[in-house]
């Protein structure tokens, strides 16, 4: 097995994040696991050291080249930090031994916060699972079977785990990125970049019954309820029907399901299912149908490949490539501001159901997935399910919790039990 390279290029999806980041904001996300006992930071540090050896695509420092950013291999290990009230605040690498991710603990929780330039949700979850498995091995001597998702830290990483999956998935034909702008949730800014986290805990069985009744998946069901909530918010805020904008939810798609790729770096795309409120008020069944069929046509290997091809082609554009980094940054920032979050009203990133081996399951009581605040959308949601619970984490940078309230009360009215907790002070 080859030793990992001293430096690597950013993958196709990661290229936008360093350009789009600001002094007080960068695209971050966080995955965490709760154990049945309090976390020992010393053991966690050791576990992190051995996990990091297995994940060469995480032991990287972001550097500026003349034409592109690049990632340079970094020795050492970030410090394990106590958790804070407002997770996913922008990470300053120089305060974190140069690393672009951090590991935090609070009581019995281990959390990993990752700058999107390194990996996507799936890669991050794999890192967390391996970290927790290593922690349990060191702390309790647990013998946890290693597979494709909980990696074996005694071997070196194969090359396919740190390669860019996008170019291989690209084909000949591209698709237009053109899309209509969407409605945005407005509100009063939180002071000092505070981030509100509201967690809704829902029994998966409840939700599964409801979704199966309608013949849709859990994600589609949640998206439809979200669309109706957004529609209500917009109608409350806007009197004239002609001024209404489409409401759309950005749903990231894990491409590993469609393409044979085992990378631990970014390998995700997205779709924006939505409804147009100018056409009239949708019922839940209509919204479900709209979402289900949209996802049916968009979330296919062919459509996603065309989308990937568009992005890979723009990256290969010779004119863009020879532009110096500072010009490129300005251009990419502009593109990001014009097409980024503008095309959706919120996000629902669903990592799906986490299954752990029995040896690990008895120690892990809960898993969470939190999106960092987005640059333009003020209230976004991330979902993960573990055991019989679905954990929906809303990340909000405005004071008003109107969207969450509308969404969760809708679920309650549909007969789904919701338990709420938050980071409110």
């Amino acid at each position, binding site marked *: 097995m080859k030793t990992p390279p001293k430096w690597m290029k950013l993958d196709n999806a990661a290229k936008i994040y360093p350009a789009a980041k600001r002094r007080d904001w960068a695209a971050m996300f966080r995955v965490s696991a709760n154990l049945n006992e309090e976390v020992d930071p010393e053991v966690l540090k050791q576990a992190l050291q051995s996990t990091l050896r297995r994940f060469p695509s995480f032991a990287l420092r972001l550097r500026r080249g003349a034409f592109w950013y690049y990632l340079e291999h970094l020795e050492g290990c970030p410090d394990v930090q106590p*958790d804070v009230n*407002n997770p996913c605040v922008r990470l300053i690498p120089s305060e974190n031994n140069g690393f672009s991710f951090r590991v935090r603990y609070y009581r019995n929780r281990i959390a990993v916060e990752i700058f999107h330039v390194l990996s996507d949700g799936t890669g991050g979850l794999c890192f967390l699972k391996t970290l927790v498995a290593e922690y349990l091995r060191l702390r309790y001597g647990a013998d946890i079977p290693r597979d494709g998702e909980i990696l074996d830290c005694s071997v070196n990483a194969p090359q396919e785990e740190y390669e860019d999956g996008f170019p291989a998935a690209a084909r000949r034909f591209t698709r237009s990125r053109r899309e209509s702008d969407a409605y945005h949730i407005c509100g009063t800014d939180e002071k000092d970049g505070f981030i509100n*986290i509201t967690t809704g805990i829902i029994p998966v069985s409840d939700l599964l019954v409801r979704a199966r009744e309608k013949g849709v998946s859990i994600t589609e069901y949640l998206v439809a309820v979200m669309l109706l909530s957004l529609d209500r918010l917009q109608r409350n805020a806007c009197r004239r029907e002609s001024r209404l904008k489409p409401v759309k939810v950005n749903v990231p798609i894990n491409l590993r399901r469609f393409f044979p790729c085992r990378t631990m770096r970014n390998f995700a795309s997205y779709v924006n299912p939505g409804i147009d409120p100018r056409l009239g008020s949708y019922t839940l069944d209509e919204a479900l149908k709209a979402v289900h069929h949209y996802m049916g046509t968009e979330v296919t290997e062919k459509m996603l490949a065309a989308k990937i091809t568009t992005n890979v082609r723009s990256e290969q554009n010779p004119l863009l490539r020879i532009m110096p980094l500072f010009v490129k940054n300005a251009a990419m920032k502009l593109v990001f501001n014009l097409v980024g979050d503008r095309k959706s009203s919120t996000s629902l990133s669903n990592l799906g159901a986490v299954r752990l081996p029995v040896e690990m399951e008895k120690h892990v009581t809960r898993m969470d997935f939190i999106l960092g605040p987005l640059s333009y959308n003020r209230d976004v949601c991330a979902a993960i399910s573990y055991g019989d619970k679905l954990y929906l984490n809303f990340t909000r940078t405005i004071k008003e919790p109107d969207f969450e*309230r509308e969404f969760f*009360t809708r679920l309650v009215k549909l007969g789904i039990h919701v338990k*709420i*907790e938050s980071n409110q002070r």
Partner: protein
Amino acid sequence: MSYCVNCGVELADSENICPLCGTEVINPAKPAVRVHQYPYPRRVETLSKNIDKKFLVSIAGTLMLIPTAITIFCDFVSGGGISWSLYVAGAMLMLFTWIFLPMLFRKSRPWLSLSLDSIAAALYVGVICAVSGGDWYWTLGLPITASCCGLVVFLAVLFELESTKGILIRAAFVLFGVGLLTVVLELIINLHLGLSLIPRWSGYVFTPCLLLGIAALILRRQKNFKEEIRRRFYV
């Protein structure tokens, strides 16, 4: 196990009020037993928002040195001495004092930075006079610069006061100041030219300024009239 009476959701034990609607949780079955198992610690992470101003000032200063050095060099090479390039050097120094020097202050100190600006302006006028070989600096250039700057510094100090909040009173003081300044300017010019000291043309400026200023002060006390103006001219 408590439910929000307003939203119908179950609330975790850590929640004193419903995070969705702000309704207080009152559960008679569980009076005031608070389990302090918050899902998140209390410590809030903040990002420092300070830009390194010293760095910015040093970069700007270095950048401004480039045109200055080039003009001095050209001047020296072409004329064998340094003459006209002093205009550029002086202007750069003045710009630096006006824009970048205040950034080095910890707090905003308007009167101090304005005084420094005035000194820089007076020096630059002096440089122009010296390089162009004029004899007008002490009798005309310096007094005019001093009186203009004096007015600006005076207004800056005045506007710091709590009693001068409001656009009308400030407008009144600006008008009085401009009126007085014209009179002083005429006096200075007349002195320089050796003419009679009785002001003439400055009266045309001083009178309307005085009257408009008084009108502004009167308007300030008329609440209804102000309201009327606002109603009729709102945009």
